[in-house]
């Protein structure tokens, strides 16, 4: 103890303490950081089949290696998909937004072009390119555990300014829009919050925890079940 006390004023002491502190913070962060990049059980075959589908359907805009393509003026034709994760693919392809029908203000929802198997294979391929958000676990989609009241509060504060209080959707700038969010598949709502498609901000797990996301989904389900008389019919029918 005496030896340690004697070296307390050693010029290097401060450096050692700083080093220790840095190691501790870094170690703690590495141990506790949010685990968004969960690996789903994709096989090598899934990845290969996904790559074939990707080259046939997506590479025109996103590039042969999903690195993204720029046009002559430096504008984005298709963004890089490295690190967007399986959740993003599952949302974009699963809701029919991708492959995109036509260039415009925004990719519109349409009947999906890929079946579930193909969507899964594409997700596997993109997930293999770099770590990113995975397709959500069943646990977070089980809305019977959700709290509609809390979800409603989160929705009003974070979502309603674009998607409308009753989830009917609304206009954004320059022809873009926030689509209606009532009556959708829970998985897609979750993935949209997690990945922030198109003009939507990302609500990652540190921002809105998985259980918060489940509450929001539960709230939207409640709106769907109880009906939303204030929703204008045309706003609901579009997209």
């Amino acid at each position, binding site marked *: 103890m005496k030896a340690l006390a004697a070296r307390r004023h050693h010029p290097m002491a401060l450096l050692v303490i700083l080093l220790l502190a840095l190691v501790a913070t870094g170690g703690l962060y590495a141990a506790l950081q949010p685990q968004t990049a969960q690996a789903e059980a994709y096989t090598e075959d899934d990845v290969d089949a996904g790559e074939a589908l990707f080259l046939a359907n997506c590479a025109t805009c996103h590039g042969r290696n999903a690195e993204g393509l720029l046009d002559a003026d430096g504008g984005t034709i298709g963004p890089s998909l490295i690190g967007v994760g399986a959740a993003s693919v599952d949302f974009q392809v699963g809701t029919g937004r991708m492959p995109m029908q036509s260039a415009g203000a925004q990719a519109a929802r349409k009947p999906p072009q890929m079946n579930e198997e193909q969507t899964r294979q594409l997700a596997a391929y993109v997930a293999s390119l770099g770590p990113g958000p995975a397709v959500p676990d069943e646990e977070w989609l089980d809305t019977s555990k959700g709290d509609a009241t809390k*979800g*409603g509060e989160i929705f009003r504060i974070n979502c*309603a300014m674009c998607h409308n*209080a*009753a989830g009917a959707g*609304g206009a954004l700038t320059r022809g873009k829009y926030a689509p209606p969010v009532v009556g959708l598949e829970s998985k897609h709502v979750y993935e949209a919050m997690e990945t922030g498609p198109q003009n939507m901000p990302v609500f990652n797990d540190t921002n809105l925890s998985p259980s918060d996301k489940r509450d929001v989904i539960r709230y939207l389900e409640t709106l769907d079940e109880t009906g939303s008389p*204030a929703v204008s019919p045309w706003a609901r029918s*579009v997209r």
Partner: protein
Amino acid sequence: MCDHVSTTTPSTRKQTSVDANNSRVYKLGAVGGDWLDKRVAGGGLIKFMARKIFPDHWSFMFGEVALYSFVILLISGTFLTMFFDPSMSEVVYNGPYEALQGATMSRAYESTLEISFEVTGGLLFRQMHHWSALVFMVAIFVHMFRVFFTGAFRKPRELNWLVGFTLMVLGMVAGFSGYSLPDDVLSGNGLRVVEGLMKSMPVVGTYLVMLMFGGEFPGTDIIPRLFTVHILLVPAMILGLIAIHLVLLVLHKHTQYPGPGRTERNVVGFPVFPVYAAKAGGFFFLVFGIITMISATTSINGVWNYGPYDPSPVSAGSQPDWYMLWTDGGLRLIPGWESTIFGYVLSWNMLIPMGIYGLLLAALALYPFLEAWVTGDDREHHLNDLPYNTPVRTGLGVAWIMTYLILALAATNDLIAIALDLSINDLTWALRIGFFVVPVLSFYITKRLCLSIQRQKRDLALHGEETSRIVRTDTGNMIEIHAPLSEYDRWVLVQHDDYRPLKAGKGVSALRAKATSFFFKDRIDPVTPAELREALEHHGHEKHVIDELTGGDYRTPSEKSSH
């Protein structure tokens, strides 16, 4: 005309009727009159009212709709006050609506949810109250336009126009104070806009806000205060003004459209008892029934969707009720102009729209006085104008409506953009340009249309209706057979007033000369008696020629052969 038609003479108020003193109807009226007469000496009044004559026309019904929807507002509003609690004290919701269970909210919002979900018939009454407010304002506006376009605001009715105008403004105040009461997010957003508008007023703004909200927004005072305004102050004022409106209506007598036998000195129509008592009574129930049906089937303002008020959220697609749309539209169109003077921010993006709203309202209120000054007309008018006979007034009215509509559309720019797949930015620019261009264009288009109709009516009065039957004379001339109008029909076309531009000087100011030039420079000469005589002579001559050729039989050869 049937034998119930009676006339009254405005100058003496003496009423004569063909069915005289011995009809059953008259006796029925006298029973009530007699009974009251012996107790409160009200028989004379009853008799006067029962035999009061009103003219008949579909366009006179809008004011009635406004009156009846106000009655429905009073009835449904009374029901709602039994259950609504205008308190901003915080409670935790435990009612049947799942998506709000456990949420903290004000007692006002909770009691609105109770009315909607728990009180028997509560939701229906809430919907009826809301819908009849919407119908009330529609009826007021349409009634105002009817009065405007027919010139029914002219002497002696200028004051009643102002009373009606005040009723319209009070209707907006009543509506706004009403839909702010539930204390949901949408109603709080509306109050926030008002707070912002008040704060933008230089010097007094912040003081006004402090006084109104009793401190910082939203505070805990505003709902109880609005409640007093909504259920006591404004309805009492509306009721009082309606009474004045109707007393003046009886005093002035109702205007009528020009027609045979109708003059500035009589009223041609039916007596209140029994004709209008039955018609109006039935019409009240019709309005009541229709509003109830709409309320039962078409839900509006589902406050449970918006959640309890919290100053941070604003929902997409937030619109006020339709009659307040125009006040929101200006705020959406104006660029975000601000300037700083001596460290104080002047928010032109609010002051300019407020100025425009003030001008639009002032123009509406003061138009009768403006027109009276231009025409210099000091006569009483009980015969309505046909809108095409006053092209500039009609044009100005349409321009006002278009300005109002552009502002109202601007307040729904997000909904329009979504519904029509447009860019909201482009739409906003289109509406900004439209705000300046559309009213001017619509003024000139309306004015030209009116003048064209006048020309056509002039032709019609002089030459009668074209029959599409053409006779060729021996010399190859083509003459179309015209069917002359009846005296009655022609009367309507030739009775209107004619004004001309004045020259400055001789007591006419340069400004007024300019104004008369703006109003009456483009005019179609009305048919003069000499012209009419000449036209009739010409027609007689033509008829002579045609009759000689056809032998008085105007049928075509094929028609002749088929008979």
